[in-house]
């Protein structure tokens, strides 16, 4: 019970006892002992004035201060009162400390619990929210970034009240939840792939999806952030696909594009098919089971998917660029100069120069064509390099490329003679539909996208290289070049390119080597001996002087496959060495 309900006597006794605790070394102190005795036995012992003031009651009875008993111990009273006041102060401080510690504990509890408003504040730092009536709605569309897609993209923030306060709060508990529109649930991506043309047109519209693992969210990110980001990605993919399909239908091209369900199919090159599809997988279990068959994602071109995202963002930025904004409220969205097209009577040429020429689909098709052409060129060069050992073909690809152009430097050399025979160096510029070849001697040749053209060209260059190599070798060895032709008009006609030929004579003039090399017919080497070394020459009366026997006579073919040496130039060097006696 409270202090006031206790009988006065016991109260006095208590106070009296505490006041009479021995304060001096002598115990019991004669002074204090006497005070205690008087206090405990006398019913009329006065209650200390302090307590009576606190309780708001005056003591019932008792001698007034200043009575003979208390006058005897003024220090005691002082001590008692001091102690009481200190205790009171201590009590206040303790209560305050208790309150502080309680609030600190509460804060920590709050941090763990995360109440609704603080969570809402966190959400507001990332997403735009507005209050409509009693609902809190947010905007996850790209409209404020310049998109013109008509989807509303609003999500609703709801309080998560299904929590049982008695049970322990789970670790990932979040007091608020976001409700995204039902058509943006799950995850989506745009699959771009180049395949051989499908023989059966009935296969359209059944794109094999592969379940792409969701991009890992940051470890500290709350679940609503991942949910909203995924929904925003779905919206962007939908916008990209809508733009692509609109252009596929509207823009006239030579080979029309096919738009079926969630797939757009177009033909960049004959026999080839580019398919762009929107793969949207919702999170429910039914679709997960269906997509469990793992399709290999190897033909998906990640680069083009990334480029699609970049292009649509660029398109968004254009609507907010300085040429569009600011604009008068009455003017439609468009380029500033287009507003002047009417009053300044622009004709069709002027108008078309202002408008963007290419749409998203055209750009992505051009990029796909370029990627395909580049891959095929690389494959052609590599297959030639692995198939043919002599001469060797080297390709140095440039690091820095454009989306529509890449370049490669092709060198044709003979092993061991790289310093001598380096006359065939080709710079290939791979464009969207053509390959431009710049030769070292300045010729510029344009090849089409056909694989065979490039292969034939490289084979003809390789054959020419052999003959050029002979020319360079002759210089080194001291032999004289008698004739040299890149395109020989004699002999069997080659189906790829032309045959080249060279004739070189030894330093002493005794011997001559004639080489004819064609891409298809291979190499033919003939040696011309001096007449005196030929045994089967018919004797005649025309030549009367024996000095004419030192001239070069008939040609004899060399069995080149039996010749020693690992490549053509080496063999020829050995032949030259053999024919120049020291």
């Amino acid at each position: 019970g409270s202090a006031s309900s206790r009988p006065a006597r016991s109260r006095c006794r208590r106070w009296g006892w505490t006041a009479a605790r021995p304060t001096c070394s002598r115990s019991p102190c004669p002074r204090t002992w006497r005070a205690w005795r008087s206090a405990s036995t006398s019913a009329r012992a006065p209650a200390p004035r302090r307590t009576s003031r606190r309780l708001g009651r005056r003591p019932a009875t008792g001698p007034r201060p200043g009575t003979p008993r208390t006058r005897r111990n003024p220090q005691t009273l002082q001590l008692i009162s001091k102690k009481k006041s200190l205790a009171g102060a201590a009590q206040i401080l303790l209560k305050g400390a208790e309150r502080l510690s309680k609030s600190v504990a509460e804060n920590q509890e709050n941090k763990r619990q995360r109440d609704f408003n603080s969570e809402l504040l966190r959400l507001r730092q990332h997403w735009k929210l507005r209050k409509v009536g009693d609902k809190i709605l947010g905007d996850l569309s790209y409209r404020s970034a310049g998109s013109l897609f008509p989807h509303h993209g609003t999500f609703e923030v709801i309080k998560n009240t299904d929590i049982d306060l008695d049970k322990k709060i789970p670790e990932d508990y979040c007091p608020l939840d976001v409700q995204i529109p039902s058509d943006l649930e799950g995850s989506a991506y745009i699959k771009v792939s180049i395949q051989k043309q499908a023989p059966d047109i009935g296969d359209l519209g059944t794109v094999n999806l592969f379940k792409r693992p969701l991009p890992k969210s940051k470890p500290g990110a709350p679940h609503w952030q991942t949910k909203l980001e995924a929904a925003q990605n779905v919206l962007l993919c939908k916008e990209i696909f809508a733009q692509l399909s609109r252009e596929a239908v509207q823009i006239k091209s030579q080979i029309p594009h096919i738009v079926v369900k969630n797939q757009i199919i177009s033909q960049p090159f004959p026999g080839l098919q580019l398919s762009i599809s929107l793969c949207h997988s919702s999170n429910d279990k039914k679709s997960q089971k269906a997509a469990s068959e793992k399709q290999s994602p190897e033909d998906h071109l990640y680069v083009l998917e990334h480029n699609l995202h970049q292009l649509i963002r660029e398109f968004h930025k254009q609507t907010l660029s300085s040429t569009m904004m600011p604009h008068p409220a009455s003017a439609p969205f468009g380029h500033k100069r287009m507003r002047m097209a009417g009053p300044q009577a622009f004709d069709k040429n002027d108008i078309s120069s202002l408008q963007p020429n290419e749409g998203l689909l055209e750009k992505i098709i051009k990029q796909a064509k370029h990627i395909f052409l580049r891959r095929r060129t690389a494959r052609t060069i590599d297959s030639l390099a692995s198939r043919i050992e002599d001469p060797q073909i080297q390709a140095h690809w440039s690091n820095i490329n454009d989306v529509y152009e890449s370049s490669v430097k092709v060198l044709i050399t003979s092993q061991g003679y790289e310093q001598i025979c380096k006359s065939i160096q080709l710079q290939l510029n791979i464009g969207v539909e053509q390959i431009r070849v710049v030769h070292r001697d300045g010729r510029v040749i344009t090849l089409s996208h056909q694989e065979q053209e490039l292969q034939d060209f490289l084979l003809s260059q390789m054959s020419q290289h052999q003959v050029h190599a002979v020319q360079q070798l002759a210089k080194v060895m001291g032999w004289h070049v008698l004739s040299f032709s890149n395109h020989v008009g004699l002999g069997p006609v080659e189906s790829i390119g032309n045959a080249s030929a060279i004739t070189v004579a030894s330093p002493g003039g005794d011997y001559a080597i004639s080489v004819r090399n064609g891409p298809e017919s291979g190499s033919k080497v003939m040696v011309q001996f001096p007449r005196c070394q030929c045994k089967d020459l018919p004797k005649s009366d025309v030549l009367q002087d024996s000095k004419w026997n030192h001239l070069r006579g008939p040609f004899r073919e060399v069995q080149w496959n039996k010749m020693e040496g690992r490549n053509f130039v080496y063999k020829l060097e050995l032949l030259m060495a053999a024919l120049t006696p020291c």
Partner: protein
Amino acid sequence: MRLLNLFCCFLVFYDSVSQMPVAEGKSVQQTVEILTRKLELLGAEKQGTFCVDCETYHTAASTMGNQGQAGKLMYVMHNSEYPLSCFALFENGPCLIADANFDVLMVKLKGFFQNAKANKIESRGTRYQYCDFLVKVGTVTMGPSARGISVEVEYCPCVVANDCWNLLMEFMQSFMGSHTPGIPSMFGNKHDSIYSPGDTMAQYMELFNKIRKQQQVSVAGIR
């Protein structure tokens, strides 16, 4: 069709619009075909179609202060060559080049300008390009009937009067023969000014007015 007189209203500097008389015994369409065949033989390539139309507006009588004063006529024209523009002209007055929304504005100004719908006249035909020249041969129709032929010849590189009307004349002679028009009447002293699309429309307006007057005269003649 009767033989119509030749009217010359051409802007030689940059562009010349003239009316081609219809050959005797032939219809408008046949004459157009003769012309286009001549052009194609010359080597011009066809580049689509063109259309120039003209609507007439009267200033409403209620707005006129003096009752005796005749209402002014305003012509609102469109040219497919300048697809986003609209031209508004008064007879001898200024020419306004405006945005395509001008038509909507005219609807709102119904109280002040009334559309004379029966007077709508247009010229439609094919557009040929021959190197630096653009030739447009069109049939002028008012309502359902064809009233004449208009030929527009444009020399693209030049914008100043005096410099090229001789060249233009020579070119026109090559396919129009004897029907080549003479010096333009509109630009008597403005030979050295820079040409503008408004001048083309002014020429068309004159041409259309002449054709309109012609028909009225001929109709009156029958009666």
